């Protein structure tokens, strides 16, 4: 395990407006295939981060709650032991990483991900030739038949770390951000190093509103949520 880094994210549900900026940003950054109409109708859209919307109450006293969901980068990731070929494993910085060329497409890992954070390439994805110009050279374009999921934009981390290492230092807080975090207008997403006691995430995970999804499963997610606030006592 790395001495210096353990990456984590804080999602403040009280800030999130469901605006989908993070969703598009992730797709742009990570060469996600275009999610066609059919892909939605057949329920195969590729969204490493997605905004789930839950209804609460009944009209007119109804609320919608937005929940940004991405791979929780579980410390004790159930997706890992079931992969027969070690295509998904734990790296030194506590991330659950996916080796595309090894994956044989059993989809066992997806079944064993309680957060439904894993997405499968059901078809070979294509871009009109000119569109391929925007593809990010730092991220593999995934062929059909393999599994993929949020990587915490590991290529950004790697590049920033390599640069910092060249300069003989560790990364500063906020120096590197995943695409979703970078764009989130409301700053509902915050990313950082949990091993750094002075980082923003380290202090935010102490917030009294913090919770983790399905904590009772023992997956030890690296994504910590902050609860939606309801003004005390107000009848909705």
């Amino acid at each position: 395990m790395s001495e210096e880094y353990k990456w984590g994210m804080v999602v403040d549900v009280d800030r999130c407006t469901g605006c989908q900026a993070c969703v598009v940003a992730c797709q742009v950054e990570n060469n996600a295939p275009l999610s066609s109409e059919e892909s939605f109708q057949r329920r195969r859209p590729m969204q490493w981060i997605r905004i789930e919307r839950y209804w609460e109450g009944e009209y007119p006293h109804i609320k919608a709650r937005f929940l940004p969901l991405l791979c929780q980068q579980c410390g004790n990731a159930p997706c890992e032991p079931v992969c027969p070929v070690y295509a998904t494993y734990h790296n030194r910085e506590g991330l659950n990483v996916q080796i595309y060329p090894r994956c044989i497409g059993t989809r066992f890992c997806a079944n064993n991900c309680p957060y439904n954070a894993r997405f499968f390439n059901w078809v070979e994805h294509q871009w009109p030739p000119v569109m391929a110009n925007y593809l990010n050279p730092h991220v593999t374009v995934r062929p059909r038949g393999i599994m993929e999921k949020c990587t915490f934009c590991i290529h950004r981390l790697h590049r920033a770390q390599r640069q910092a290492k060249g300069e003989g230092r560790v990364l500063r807080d906020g120096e590197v951000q995943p695409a979703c975090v970078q764009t989130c207008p409301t700053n509902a997403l915050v990313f950082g190093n949990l091993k750094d006691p002075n980082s923003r995430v380290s202090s935010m995970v102490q917030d009294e509103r913090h919770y983790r999804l399905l904590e009772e499963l023992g997956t030890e997610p690296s994504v910590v949520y902050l609860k939606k606030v309801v003004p005390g006592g107000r009848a909705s």
Partner: protein
Amino acid sequence: MALTRRQFLKVAATSTVGAVAFVACSTPQDEFLIQSPVKMPEDLVAGADNWYASVCRQCPAGCGTIVRVMEGRAKKIEGNPLHPINRGKLCARGQAGLQALYHPDRLRGPRRRVGERGSGQFEEISWDEGLSLLLSRLKELQGKGQADTLLMVTDPVDGHLALLVKRFLRAFGGQHLVYEPMEPTTLTTSLQRTFGQDLIPHFDLENTQFLLSFGADFLETWLSPVAYGVGYGQFRQGNRRRGTLVVVSPRFSTTAASADEWIPIKPGTEGVLALSLAYVILSQGLASPQVAQAMTGGAGVGALESFRPEAASTITGIPARDITRLARDFAQQRPSLAIGGGPAAAQSNGLFNLSAVFALNFLVESVGQRGGVLNNPSPAIPDVGPASYNSLADWVGLEERLRTGQPRPVNLLLTRNANPVYGLPSQFASALSRVPYIVSFSSFMDETTAKADLILPGHVYLEEWGNSVPNPGPGFETIGWQQPVVNPVGDTRSFPDVLLALAQGLGGETERALPWSTFRDMLWEGAKSLHQRGSVRAADFESFWIGLLQRGGWWDTTARGGQQTTKAPVLPREPRLPSFSGEGDFHLILFPSISLGDGRGAHLPWLQGTPDPLTTVAWQTWVEMNAQSAQKMGLQEGDVLAVESPVGVVEALLYLHPAIPPGVVAMPMGQGHDAYGRYAQGRGANPLSLISLPKDSDNGSLAWAATRVRIRKTGQRVKLAKLEGFVTPTQLPGTEIVPEAQVTR
């Protein structure tokens, strides 16, 4: 006490239980050493990337961007962290800009019409040929003394481009119309009347305590969503007490979803509610006596007698008790801020509604205060201001002019990135066809460009120069600077450059009015007046210019808007009620899609594939109808419904919405394109075609939320393309997916 795997193994090994089996099942030490067995591209990529600062043009808000460019290709657009509007953030539409740049259906070079108009048959020509064709037309007009029959229709243009267009037309002659489907003229007029300002003020929601929105969907598409998004985040969980948001709106919008309380209201009665709040505030003595005197014209609260909560309750459909409570909260939790827009404005009484709403800010003394309404200063460079807009009235006038040829016909139409044929009622499209010659400078084949005789395609914003004066601004002088980040992808030319080239070709006064050979030169010169102050400090102008481009703009945080010039308005004594067109059972509320906007984003697959935050539907046009009332009518999700208004019928898919009021149906704008590339064409329906022309009775803008419709089942059913699953998603009892915290900070 949790048992870790390691502990367990230890225990297991000390027991006589077959240790071999457990060692075999445990994590081999090697697992942690395994690294990628193949070199991933991220390890291989050679070369560095460049980041260029520029401006987002996906909507008029004018956010600053930085664009990552590698090997000459734009790879990613991010928010410019220095830019005061968006502070490093972008919305979904801003993120998707790359697809406009590298769109497979971009117009890649000049074309001339060969078939019937509208048949879509064009032949490719060279720029020289295209330019000379246009030049000869212009010269012909000039020669015949018909220069005033030139009409230019553009999207909202601002900064130096607006100046350029203005100068060109002033020198040559002709009219300029700005087309913006969601034209904010009602808003700007009411703001002008209430605050005495031409510019939209800075609504300081970051610092407000109580935010009351009457249909202003500021978290979606209203004015400057990213700026408000950043502010909203601070408003919720900044370093201060958490602000309260109440949304009053006839439809449960995404903004309403984020509110602490959503108050459904009968369409078009927002002004009545606002005045009723005023009544409560005044009658309960929650406003200062001076303000009370001023705003009632000295008559006291008696002047507002017709807005007593009981009376307002029957008009608005909101219980009197709630009105009183809301008024007290609004008056007491200061600083408070009231904003209005969207469906409240798009009514026959829109101006009345918005004026009443904005007036509330005077009542709680938020005008000119932190956390309230702050003036924006006039543009840093004189004459180089934000975009101006035309209202529906202007378009109706144009239609009449085209039809009758009176007072003057239109002989040449130049259009750029404006698509009135898509957004305006159909009589406009047929009138447009009477123009003898149409030239389009748009980058994409849209419905209007399809009618053109000559296409001289412009750059996409990532390829061209420009600057932007955001409106609303951040409360101080700000200009965003837009530079090309990549070489042009196709054989296109920047519209301002073409205008300058035309001016040169025309010579004479036009050439004198526009003495620059490229738009960049014009900008260069224009920037000179900014040199000595503001955010970019440099000894010489050369370095200043570089600094300006590096920062993506210029701002001067000390150059703030002046004090309020107008006094508090006198509140009206009588309610003005809305009138609707159509007789149906349902009130139709349209709303711009958070991803496609009014339809401008429909050509980008990223935006098409972005689920609507509330319904999670993508790629389609749906009708939001109250789930229970729909089920009572025997309707099911995905039923193809015919929505009939007095002027049209469109078909769209039913979405069973648990939160929309029973008598209301809502539809997103943005789909239903006949042209506009492979991803937009022939997809969904354009609900704007249901809107007849009820105008705001005061300023004549389009009342697109004032139509009543009939709903008919067609018998077909199509599967909704949505992200949510099989059941209506709710939190199951005893589970903590989106738990609530009762804490107040």
